[in-house]
């Protein structure tokens, strides 16, 4: 395929694609570059330095960032593990059970956290917690994160499960596997790339969330995004750009991993 067919070639489409990628990447690249600026001002360039990275880890605000990072990471780990477990079970129940009346409804309910605007979810969760007298803090953030991570974990798992033909299940049963053995030896290993992809997506989504966290966190606790938002209110500072660059890299690594996982062994499915 050296040459694209006549009807697939349109002048300007490549340019548009480049414009698109430029808009997507330019801001990120520029922030990454400026994070290496040695100047305390964000306007003037004074030469390369790792000063602001040092500042993130050891500067005056480092304690605040470290606590926030710990909160973010621990919540993301717990929320993604819990939501992935719930999503895996739900995917098997929905896709591997016979059709039943609540099937579509179940799928709608699971995708609800994606469909409902984040700000409405945030309002709803805050009101609900305050109505039942749930104290806002670490655990309220965790619960909220588990809820909105479920659809993000569900989608890659369900996609993978749909690709596993029912005939493999039949073959295992035919060869005397019990339901438990069927899950352990056939379904789980074949589903694993999907589960890991879902886990990673849920992890990033939790790590990234700002709006809902900001509503339900209560006073005195920060995650990385809320800490950054608070700091940026007073203007963008170079240490924030260094912190952002670190988070950016973490996100990109996670997505790349998730992407590679979702392609692993996808040739195993048959036509």
């Amino acid at each position, binding site marked *: 395929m050296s040459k694209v067919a006549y009807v697939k070639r349109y002048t300007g489409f490549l340019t548009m694609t480049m414009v698109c990628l430029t808009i997507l990447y330019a801001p990120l690249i520029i922030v990454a570059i400026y994070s290496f600026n040695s100047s305390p001002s964000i306007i003037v360039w004074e030469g390369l330095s790792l000063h602001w990275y040092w500042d993130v880890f050891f500067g005056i605000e480092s304690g605040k960032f470290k606590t926030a990072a710990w909160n973010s990471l621990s919540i993301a780990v717990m929320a993604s593990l819990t939501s992935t477990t719930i999503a895996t079970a739900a995917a098997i129940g929905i896709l591997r059970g016979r059709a039943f009346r609540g099937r579509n409804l179940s799928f709608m309910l699971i995708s609800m956290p994606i469909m409902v605007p984040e700000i409405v979810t945030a309002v709803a969760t805050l009101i609900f917690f305050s109505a039942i007298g749930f104290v806002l803090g670490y655990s309220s953030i965790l619960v909220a994160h588990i809820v909105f991570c479920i659809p993000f974990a569900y989608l890659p798992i369900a996609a993978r499960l749909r690709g596993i*033909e029912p*005939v*493999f299940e*039949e*073959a*295992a*049963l*035919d*060869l*005397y*596997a*019990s339901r438990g*053995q069927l899950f352990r*030896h*056939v379904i789980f*290993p*074949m589903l694993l790339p999907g589960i890991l992809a879902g886990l990673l997506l849920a992890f990033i989504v939790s790590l990234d969330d700002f709006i809902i966290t900001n509503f339900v966190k209560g006073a005195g606790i920060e995650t990385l995004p809320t800490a950054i938002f608070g700091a940026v209110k007073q203007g963008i500072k170079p240490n924030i750009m260094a912190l952002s660059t670190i988070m950016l890299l973490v996100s990109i690594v996670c997505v790349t991993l998730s992407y590679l996982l979702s392609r692993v*062994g996808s*040739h*195993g*499915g*048959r036509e």
Partner: protein
Amino acid sequence: MMSQDQTTVAVELRHVVKKFGSFTAIRDAHLSIYDNEFFTLLGPSGCGKTTLLRLIAGFEEVTQGQVRLFGKDLQDLPPNRRPVNTVFQNYALFPHMTIAENVGFGVRMKGASQGEMQKTVERMLELVRLTDHAHKRPSQLSGGQQQRAALVRAIAPSPRVLLLDEPLSALDLKLRQAMRIELKQLQQETGITFIFVTHDQEEALSMSDRIAVMSDGVIQQVGPGREIYEHPRNRTVANFIGETNLLGAIVHEKSGSGATLTLEDGSRVMCTDNVPVGVGESGQVLIRPEKIVVSATESSSFGLHCKLASAVYLGTDTQYVLRTDGGLTLTARMQNVDDTAMQMSTGSSVVAMIEPAAIRWLADGD
């Protein structure tokens, strides 16, 4: 033909009905399959043959009737507790396991020890010459190798009955022909009852002890291949197996050795088949194209005078389409033993000769 003891029934279907919603996939299937038999379910796609197989395997539940295995009702027995294994159409080899792991899966699930399992796997792989591929993944094997791996995976746990769901359909012609011989040998060596599903009549005829022809969810006829080809019970069977000339006929005269029939165009033919109806009644006869001898010169009293409408050269033989003087169309097929084919040109007068024994009276009109 059957070489083994015919008295032990391996699988028995008793008035089995299977419905999917309002669609009836199997209508009243009643059938006995004997132990050690190579039994084939033959029919066009959608005729219900695969559904029948899945009922025996336990993947579907019968709507009515019984499926019995060596005299025991299988009702409520899930597939993982039936001593029956399946070779799936696209093999369904587990992609995340090696060939050895695949072949050992059933034995392992049955609770065999590690040593036992290894021994079985080795024996099985040797049986189909896959020993060198034991540690490869299914995707690294050719179609034929995957096929053989799927076969021994299903045989390894020593099932009483092996179900094969069009296992050769994904292979190319040459390989398919070689596998037929291999399958037949394997069945004879292992003594396992094979129930084989296919839509390919050549496959069915070349391997089976007995064949059941199915269409529209009904088992039309059961019998050895020869019987089904030579004496199809009805038009459906006759049409599905091989090419046929189906002609309307009226009984003109009956004698001890057979009957004289009047064909639709008024011509008379002799028939030595059993004609169960009286003089003056009508029915249908079947004439296989290869039983019609076409010649340019008149040399037999049984001949029908025809014009040659077309002759198509097909390599080993030639197919002729003939129009009798009375306006009937016949298809004939003759081997190209010599240059006869070339001597007859389209439009020329020819004689079609039909031996009285080659004309079959169809018992069932429809």
